[in-house]
């Protein structure tokens, strides 16, 4: 798949009431890409989305869309549509009229409107609901209508601001799947904002991790999960054990008094680093066979696995294992070289 | 930017419209002559005369006392009534609310003649009591209408939680429900006070001969030409209102800071 850049964001900043919300964002978004802006609340992800949508203007920086400066174009003339956080469906219009709103603004002939809206209703499986009032619908139905209302305009880019936040778990998972499907079928770029890392990992082609107004890491879900660039990303994406370590030489890192083989290189000899190990990558073995040992502190059954906390000289290790361990027993732990992720300290 | 300038201008013009008559009242209270159209020179003459004018003072006294009593009584009665209405069965509730709504939507003149006929039929002596009863009649609905929405917005478990923790129903109302709906009660009281102090028509028909209030005084004066003593009185009222608004504003700002 050759990727054509669609939106280029250059050194974007936003100041609001004396607070700097975006501190210089550089980001390129490609055609047909599913991009997720991931971060905790207050990290600036919604602001970034609102700037792309045209509801906020940046303090400085550029947003280029298909080679044109997007900031100068008012939101109602952009080929971009938004699915709002709480849907923002018009309460005075019924389902059909809500979806038809954008087409009517463009003065599309009424016969074509009927056809396109009905097709949308069919897609979201709400054909019988055309004349219903918005407040008579469930959250999940409102959600689909909000998506249909945006998509019926055939935008180049669809912005989604935590659209699944108000739904319960089961519905949310169904919608994640459906959204991904829609995106693939229609060939539209999706920019999706969420604070839910699982959602981000499931749906995205590219994840942009934001914190404190800055991009922490850009990459595929696999990259982000397996090769977090810093402590923040490692902590935010799933559970992880982060350990102080020393890079002895290329491919050799020392922590817990043991030199491990690893796959990382390019650090100075004896440079202090941090090592990330995912809980499922730690393996509990007999204490003689372990690279290092610890005492089992607690065991909690989590359904698919046991969550075992092992204390090693006062430091806590989280281990996910399909096998239980006895609390109070001394165990050994090993980890495969590919599962040791070395990162620089304090980025 | 042009838009902002335009809207500021509009706002200014509208406030000018609203306050011009009040400014006129104030300015001409200091006029030397009796004219309220031509300025002839500064004097405090009308303020001196106001101090001598016992009729005007009585009217002011009745206006304030009726407004205060009517507001106090309707706020208390209206609040407890609302709590009661809240628990009524659907049919009775609809009936009470509809009747409660009547004084709000009926023209003053109709309410006034209706009350006059009632008091005449009951052979009551027209005076302070009839006027006060009339004011309470049209004040309570406003209290009920501003308290009820608060009750509906309240978490229904609050009172139950209080009783669960050992409060009697009355204590639950006093300690939990009333603090929760207080903003509605205050708004209702303010509304009642505004309606009462500004009322003319209903007072006019129910006060009888012995008792007057400011509105009645002004109305009867309007036929012969208004004396600037009234302007002086209006000026004092405006200053009083301004001072109390400023004080209450400062108090609420202080409160917010403490929080």
């Amino acid at each position, binding site marked *: 798949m050759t990727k054509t850049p669609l939106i280029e964001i250059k050194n974007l900043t936003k100041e609001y009431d004396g607070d700097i919300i975006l501190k210089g964002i550089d980001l390129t978004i490609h055609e047909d890409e599913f991009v997720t802006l991931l971060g905790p609340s207050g990290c600036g992800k919604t602001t970034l989305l609102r700037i792309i949508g045209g509801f906020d203007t940046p303090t400085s920086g550029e947003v280029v869309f298909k080679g044109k400066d997007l900031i100068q174009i008012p*939101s*109602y003339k952009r080929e*971009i549509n*938004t699915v*709002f956080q*709480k849907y*923002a469906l018009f309460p*005075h*219009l*019924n389902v*059909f009229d809500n979806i038809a*709103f*954008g087409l009517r*603004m463009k003065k599309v002939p009424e016969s074509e409107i009927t056809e396109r809206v009905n097709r949308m209703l069919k897609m979201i499986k709400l054909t019988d609901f055309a004349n219903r009032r918005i407040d008579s619908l469930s959250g999940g139905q409102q959600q689909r209508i909000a998506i249909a209302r945006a998509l019926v*305009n055939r935008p180049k880019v669809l912005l989604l601001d935590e659209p699944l936040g108000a739904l319960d778990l089961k519905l949310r998972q169904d919608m994640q799947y459906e959204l991904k499907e829609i995106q693939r079928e229609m060939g539209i770029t999706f920019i999706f904002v969420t604070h839910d890392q699982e959602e981000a990992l499931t749906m995205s082609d590219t994840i942009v991790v934001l914190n404190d107004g800055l991009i922490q890491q850009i990459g595929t879900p696999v990259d982000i999960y397996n090769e977090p660039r810093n402590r923040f990303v490692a902590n935010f994406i799933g559970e992880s054990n982060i350990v102080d370590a020393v890079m002895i030489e290329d491919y050799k890192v020392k922590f817990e008094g043991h030199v491990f083989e690893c796959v990382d290189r390019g650090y100075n000899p004896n440079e202090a680093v941090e090592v990330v190990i995912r809980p499922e990558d730690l393996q509990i073995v007999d204490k003689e066979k372990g690279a290092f040992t610890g005492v089992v502190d607690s065991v909690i059954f989590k359904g698919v696995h046991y969550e075992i906390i092992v204390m090693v000289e006062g430091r806590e290790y989280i281990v996910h294992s399909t096998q239980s361990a006895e609390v109070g027993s001394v165990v050994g732990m090993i980890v495969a070289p590919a599962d040791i992720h070395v990162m620089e300290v304090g980025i | 930017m042009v838009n902002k300038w335009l809207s500021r201008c*509009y*706002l200014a013009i*509208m406030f000018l419209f*609203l*306050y011009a*008559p009040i400014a006129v*009242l104030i300015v001409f209270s200091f006029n030397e002559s009796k*004219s*309220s*159209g031509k300025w002839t020179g500064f004097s405090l003459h009308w303020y001196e005369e106001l101090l001598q004018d016992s009729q005007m003072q009585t009217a002011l006294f009745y206006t304030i006392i009726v407004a205060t009593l009517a507001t106090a009584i309707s706020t208390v009665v209206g609040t407890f009534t609302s*709590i*009661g*209405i*809240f*628990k*009524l*069965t659907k049919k009775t509730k609809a009936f*009470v609310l509809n009747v409660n709504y*009547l004084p709000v*939507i*009926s*023209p*003053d*003149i*109709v309410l006034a*003649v*209706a*009350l006059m*006929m009632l008091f005449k039929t009951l052979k009551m002596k027209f005076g302070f009591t009839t006027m006060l009863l009339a004011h309470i009649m049209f004040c*309570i609905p406003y209290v009920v209408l501003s308290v009820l929405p608060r009750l509906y917005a309240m978490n*229904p478990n609050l009172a139950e939680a209080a009783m669960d923790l050992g409060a009697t129903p009355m204590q639950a109302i006093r300690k939990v429900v009333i603090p929760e709906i207080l903003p509605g009660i205050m708004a209702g009281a303010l509304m009642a006070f*505004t309606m009462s*102090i*500004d009322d*003319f*028509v209903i007072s006019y*028909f129910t006060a009888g001969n012995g008792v007057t209030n*400011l*509105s009645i005084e*002004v109305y009867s004066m*309007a036929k012969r030409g208004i004396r600037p003593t009234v302007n002086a009185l*209006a000026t004092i*009222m405006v200053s009083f*209102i301004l001072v109390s608004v400023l004080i209450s*504003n400062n108090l609420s700002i202080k409160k917010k800071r403490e929080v």
Partner: protein
Amino acid sequence: MHESTKRLSYPYIVWISIIIIIPMLLIFLYSLIDPSDGNPMAFRLTIDNYVKFFSPIYISTLARSLWIAVWSTLACLLLGYPLAWVIAQCHPKKQSSLLLLFIMPMWINMLLRTYAWISILGKNGILNNILEFFHLAPVDIMYTDFAIILGMVYNFLPFMVLPIHTAIAKVDKNLIDAARDLGANNRQVFSKVVFPLTLPGIITGVIMVFLPAVSTFVIPQLLGGGQFMMIGNLIEKQFLLTGNWYFGSALSMILMIFILLSIWLMKRFDSDGQAGGALPW
């Protein structure tokens, strides 16, 4: 709260029965009594009082009241909506002060404020003094329909602004963003989203202005010089001047019917707008 708290409303039910329901029934009863009998205890029922109303002078009085009330309401709406809009766009802290400034004049006696307009608009009033200063021809506004409408707008404008402001303040800002996002320009955002959503506020405002406007007798008395009769003046005259309570009651009933009818009409209009269905754009 316990079921038994409903008893708190019982005293009020007794109170409204005596002071609201009985008086209304009295009006109804009196409107049906033959005035020639004189003795209300030995009355004869008749519809003569209503028949009497259907003579040209009384009909034209009602028509005139409606006419002036409609114009006043319209003027309040046209002036009040932009005003409510401007206020709603201000900073929340500033908004409450502005609204307070709006209500404050109501605490100063309404008759006084209305009377002050005579000083402004009168033949030798302030307006004409200003015009004279600029060597412009004086205007004679006092004691005209215009003066009455101006007095009504002045007195009732807050009743229009407050509910509309509440309605505008309630409009979810996201809905406006959403409309823009879907391609609506400023004008379309207003006509397709903001206006329909604030319609309930407009309707409340219209009712709140129309009601006192159609029935007031003070404003026409003061600013119309008493020479322009409106239905309110007519009712007042029956009770305080001619002493014909029976005809006065019939007039009150007719006024009430008109008001209930107009409220019903407005409310229906409102629920139609809310009910949805494919709207003709």
